[in-house]
């Protein structure tokens, strides 16, 4: 394990990355968080656990995922774009890396039931998938708004044997799905593992999820070096909702000289417009009003519709090791179409944010001509086709 104190090493014993993180949960949940922390430390050091996870990642999820050099897109933008293809995993996004690990942990802790929150539905689908694979009971909380805009993913989860519970409180999106999952967990904690979908929540989740997503960045660095004769990219870009695909990607490159860029939705830009606060078990940056009521994020992408950001990203922003940008819905739609037309790849709307920033930065000179850019394509766009169709008509 990486030494504490280096960027993207282990957090301190209280689960802090600099001033962010911690464990701000009701007392009922504290023992479960401690149990998970202990179980994860033991499992992560256990060769047989790692072998089993690696086996599932390879034979079930389809890892390693390829890198794709984008010839026509690069020619058009004037920068060299390479994609890390998490869209090609089983279930179609990086979320599968996290849930396979957490489902194995749940099993190891003797918990036969998992709950999850989901925004776009990708994490819900991934959790339902892992639960089916390991024979666990699965309940997914999803905001009512997202149930509507991601109807196909709701049906997928049901086909996989999961129960989907629409959440009608608050903004009826991802934030409220997290609230409802936490409320349920307060009651079911003795039998149930909460499979959090991003690098957020109380310690040890931000750390645990980042370690489970680290495979994205480590593979990408190896592959990139192979492709480029031993070089690292100049810039590494990933979209940020809670920040798990970005954290996993950055973990592979934090020790290189690559510039790290996280891209948020303009309507949910926690680094750009958020202030420090304590919500969903963590101290981090959140969109909130002047007294501390949490504001509702707004984005076309259900997966980025979250008013906060994982605590490690707040820390990376603070120490300047990563930088966080935001893009608007129109730019995202443009990037979505551009990748489809130039490379024959329909990205999910979430990673289309990362691409949209690359398009903008290549256009305005933020990226120098010929810069080498690695973008994590965190998921495929099938789930968004209907929504994009409506937006374009």
């Amino acid at each position, binding site marked *: 394990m990486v030494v504490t104190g280096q960027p993207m090493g282990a957090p301190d014993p*209280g689960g802090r990355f600099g001033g962010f993180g*911690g*464990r*701000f*949960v*009701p*007392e*009922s*949940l*504290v*023992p*479960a968080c401690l149990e998970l922390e202990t179980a994860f430390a033991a499992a992560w050091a256990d060769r047989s656990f790692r072998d089993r996870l690696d086996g599932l990642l390879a034979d079930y999820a389809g890892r390693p995922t390829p890198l794709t050099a984008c010839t026509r897109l690069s020619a058009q933008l004037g920068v060299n774009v390479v994609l890390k293809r998490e869209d090609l995993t089983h279930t179609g996004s990086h979320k599968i890396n996290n849930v396979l690990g957490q489902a194995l942990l749940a099993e190891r802790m003797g918990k036969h039931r998992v709950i999850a929150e989901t925004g776009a539905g990708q994490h819900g689908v991934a959790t339902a998938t892992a639960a089916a694979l390991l024979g666990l009971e699965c309940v997914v909380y999803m905001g009512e708004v997202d149930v509507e805009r991601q109807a196909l993913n709701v049906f997928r989860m049901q086909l996989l044997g999961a129960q989907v519970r629409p959440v009608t*409180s*608050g903004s009826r999106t991802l*934030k*409220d799905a997290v*609230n409802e999952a*936490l*409320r349920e967990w*307060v*009651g*079911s*904690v*003795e039998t149930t593992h909460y499979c959090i979908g991003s690098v957020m929540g109380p310690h040890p989740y931000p750390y645990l999820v980042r370690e489970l997503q680290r495979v994205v960045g480590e593979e990408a660095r190896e592959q990139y070096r192979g492709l480029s004769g031993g070089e690292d990219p100049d810039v590494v870009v990933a979209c940020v909702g809670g920040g798990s695909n970005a954290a996993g990607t950055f973990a592979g490159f934090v020790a290189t000289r690559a510039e790290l860029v996280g891209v948020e939705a303009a309507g949910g830009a926690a680094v750009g417009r958020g*202030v*420090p*606060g*304590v*919500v*969903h*078990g963590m*101290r981090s940056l*959140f969109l*909130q009003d*002047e*007294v*501390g*009521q*949490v504001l509702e994020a707004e984005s076309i992408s259900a997966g980025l519709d979250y008013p906060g950001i994982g605590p490690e990203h707040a820390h990376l922003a603070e120490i300047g090791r990563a930088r966080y940008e935001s893009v608007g819905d129109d730019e995202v739609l443009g990037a979505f179409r551009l990748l489809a037309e130039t490379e024959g790849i329909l990205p999910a709307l979430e990673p289309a944010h990362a691409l949209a920033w690359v398009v903008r930065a290549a256009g305005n000179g933020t990226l120098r001509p010929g810069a080498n850019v690695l973008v994590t394509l965190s998921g495929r766009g099938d789930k968004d086709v209907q929504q994009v169709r409506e937006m374009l008509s």
Partner: protein
Amino acid sequence: MSAAAETAPGSPVPGSPVPGSPVPGSPVPGALEAHLRARRAAGAKLLVPYVTGGLGDDWVEVVQAVAAAGADAIEVGIPFSDPVMDGPVIQEASVRALRARTTPRRVLQGIAAAEIGIPVAVMTYYNLVARAGDRRMAAELHAAGVAAAILPDLPLEEAGPWCAEADAAGVETVLLAAPTTDGPRLARIVARSRGFLYAVGLLGVTGEREHVARSALEIARRAKAATDLPVLVGVGVSTPAQAEEICRVADGVVVGSALVRRLLAGEGPEGAGRFVAEMRRALDA
């Protein structure tokens, strides 16, 4: 009477440091704890109803009616946008209060301006405190005449900085213990709790329940064995009969959703007073 001797059973367990507890031994009880101890010493079972601040134009009158009906102290909620310890009833109350533009300041002004007659504890979530800053919020609570604070998402390990400011400002921090809290942890929690110990009666969020959970009596029994601090069971306490049953073990109860449901139904100060009086009679019988 020596305060140290009186609270001795709640003293820190040797070898387990208590975060946020600057002084060894126990402090002089604050206004809430002193009041509850005195009532208990007089033979009373303790009744602490919860009211959401800003719920309805007449919420301050509700607080006064609850006090007049025989409450020993009152918990006033400052509504938060994301109350993860609360079930549907208190969530709805929070939504309504926030829609009516309730802010922490307006709740505190309401408390400060009213003649209430019993100690007030504020219940809210830590983000509202963090946004203001620990020191400023502690000072504002004190200035409003609030005796204590209950922050359900601020567990022992994270409570140190807040507790230090609250102690300095003379605000008692009530900590919570849950059915999942083991013995050594319970000992550390009671050592750092002020005012009373909030024993969460069941694994779950606030809301009414049909029956008294076995865990309510169990946590009350364990807590009573661990501390001399008043032990109040909250979450799920719904009827006078349930309150009476729990108080055979606990020193008292916190009653939230059962009262707030009546307020949501428009029963107002009168209905609130009637319900609390009924609870009072059951506990005094």
